[in-house]
């Protein structure tokens, strides 16, 4: 067959979210690729210029609905940097605990979708079933299952419910048992390894140059995790290791995410143990001073950055959001060229795309 351009998407059962991938195919091998985003552009940055600072928090939840706590936390960090608000320690610990639970839930959803794409329906159902444990915990904390609207500028919205620490520890034990089972199911399956090893190589220099962050970067051997190297919130007091893996293929990215789940369980245990008593929120001023604020977190998908410019009123003058997936997807052609059409699923699935944040 001659070379032809195939459109995978925008309506496609495999692609998570609404985006288009045009690949140039020669028989079964991919010779060129071009991702197209922008189908889900909602104009969030413009929207935020008309809302007060507190009204923007639910909007930031919907940036990436797969891991929404990280984004609202990032926004609150940014605005607290602008306004100069000191957050009480209990609020910081609660935020970290909630974020790590969100990280596990997000990675489990990634695992479920990844297994479903590769043909293993079992993995999908098991991943979603275990995610329910953490979603239930977060529902007890904030009241909703997917977009939480939980952090506030100056702390968190409400305190922890009763027995939350006991439930969190139980969830961690359950999760560690299940992680062992997942390693048997996935790492022990020859077919899974056949579909993942050696696929989608992204060398270290390319990853650094193209701005890839998060698990794809750590899967290429760069041991850089924002929580450890440029810590924010209370991550300095928590003992954990950023995980990386030297093989630059899909298996490495999968492995990095599984290891991150182990680390998140450790972090949750430590926050439960170290949780101080005290206030969980301070009142932030309504009007922001003139100036700029900057915030940066380690999203489950990479490095998420926000930059806010205040002008003395209670609405931001400019809010700029950097989403990790936006840049990682632009690096996708590097990972796709030379492989087969059937590998597109594995490679793009390994990047954990959530188009809500790419298009804003």
């Amino acid at each position, binding site marked *: 067959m001659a070379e032809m351009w195939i459109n995978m998407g925008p309506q496609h059962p495999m692609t998570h979210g609404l985006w288009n991938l045009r690949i140039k195919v020669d028989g079964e091998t991919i010779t060129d690729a071009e991702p197209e985003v922008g189908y889900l552009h909602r104009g969030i940055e413009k929207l935020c210029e008309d809302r007060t600072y507190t009204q923007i928090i639910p909007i930031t939840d919907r940036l990436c609905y797969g891991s929404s706590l990280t984004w609202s936390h990032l926004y609150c960090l940014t605005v607290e940097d602008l306004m100069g608000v000191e957050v009480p320690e209990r609020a910081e610990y609660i935020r970290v605990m909630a974020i790590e639970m969100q990280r596990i839930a997000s990675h489990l959803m990634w695992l479920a979708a990844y297994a*479903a794409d590769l043909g293993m329906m079992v993995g999908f159902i098991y991943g979603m079933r275990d995610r329910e444990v953490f979603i239930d915990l977060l529902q007890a904390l904030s009241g909703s299952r997917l977009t939480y609207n939980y952090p506030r500028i100056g702390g968190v919205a409400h305190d922890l419910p009763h027995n939350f620490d006991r439930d969190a520890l139980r969830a961690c034990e359950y999760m560690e048992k299940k992680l062992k089972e997942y390693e048997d199911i996935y790492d022990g399956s020859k077919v899974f390894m056949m579909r993942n090893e050696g696929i989608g190589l992204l060398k270290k220099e390319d990853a650094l140059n193209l701005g890839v962050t998060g698990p794809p970067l750590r899967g290429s051997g760069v041991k850089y995790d924002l929580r450890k190297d440029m810590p924010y919130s209370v991550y300095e007091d928590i003992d954990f290791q950023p995980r990386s893996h030297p093989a630059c293929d899909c298996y490495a990215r999968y492995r990095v995410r599984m290891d991150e789940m182990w680390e998140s369980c450790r972090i949750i245990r430590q926050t439960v143990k170290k949780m101080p008593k005290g206030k969980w929120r301070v009142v932030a001023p309504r009007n922001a001073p003139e100036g700029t604020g900057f915030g940066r977190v380690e999203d489950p998908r990479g490095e998420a950055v926000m930059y806010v410019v205040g002008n003395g009123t209670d609405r931001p003058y400019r809010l700029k959001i950097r989403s990790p997936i936006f840049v990682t997807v632009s690096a996708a052609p590097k990972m796709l060229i030379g492989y087969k059409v059937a590998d597109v699923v594995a490679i793009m699935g390994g990047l954990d795309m959530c188009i809500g944040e790419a298009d804003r």
Partner: protein
Amino acid sequence: MNLYEFCYGIIHWLVDLVNNLWYWLGDLLPWWFGDFFTAVGDFARSDGHLSVMTILLEGVVILVVGLVNVLNFIWIDRKLSGRIFDFYGPYYVGYRIGGWLQNLADGIKLFTKEIITPAKADRVGFLVAPIVFVGSSVLVLAAIPFSHNFGIATNDSGAGIPAGVLFAFAMFAIAPFAILVAGWSSNNKYTLIGGMRSAAQMMSYEIPMLLIVASVLLLAGGFSFGEVVDAQHDIWFAIPLFLGFIVFLVCIVAEVEVQPFDLPEAEAELVEGWTTEYCGMRFGLFMMTSYLRGYAGGALTTALFLGGWQGPRLIPDEFWFLIKAYIVFFVVEWMRWSLPRIRVDQILGLGWKRLMPLAILNLLIAAAMKTMGWF
């Protein structure tokens, strides 16, 4: 009493019943008209007519048994996958019998859908492909007897089709042709790719499969199912030809296109693969035939390797055959829901590079055993 005699008896009784009516009419009406009815009655009672009607009735019986088994298989598949996935399978339709009627409900739903032919599709190919596919798969069933007495081609001498195994595998192998035609005539880039992948996969797994069948036939000494099963009265062929048994199972799974070998119809890549453009009952026929081929594969495995219908005399032979076929199906389903999909070039690599040498090795083992006089 074998199936032929049973059906003959039924037809004979039926013809006698109807003949009373013809002869009475012949007597009643005037001679230039009544002769006609008498002649019809005489014709109906002739041997040729009775044999033809018997064979038709046999065909209907086997078809009904086969289709009921297929319904069972679909139900087991969905219930089993539900249990593996930690939820219930079909639950509400047919509540008290575990959701068995769900299949009928789905069939009725498919019947009521509008059948659309794409405008630029090749009409002849589009129409003919399902017919060939379904027809050839059902013909496989025709060749496999459930026991000495229950098979479509048992005539009054009691023998089955002389080259039953050969016929069954020949019919099994027509499917790639139909799939190619279906994929190509839908006028769709994706179905074309899916059809070609599917045909490539099926054809490359035919070869190890037929090599293993050749080794079984070598040990059995004959080409018909009766002889193959009788040759296993000491020991089932699965035990000396264990390698062949495993490879044969893998080949059946690849032929029937269940996971882990179902890339041609993988939802994640190409929507439904080569059946994308078929709607309504045509699609239903494809799905049903897929399970029918699974059933046929299980039946072939049983007949060739697991001793066919031999077993303790507690229950009739036919039930032993069905039980063994169900066990094979159960193992295939277990494998299906536990493994991810293999990429299509890896599937072809597996078929050519790994399975064919093993099949040849198996043939050598069989030849060695035959030379040593063990069989």
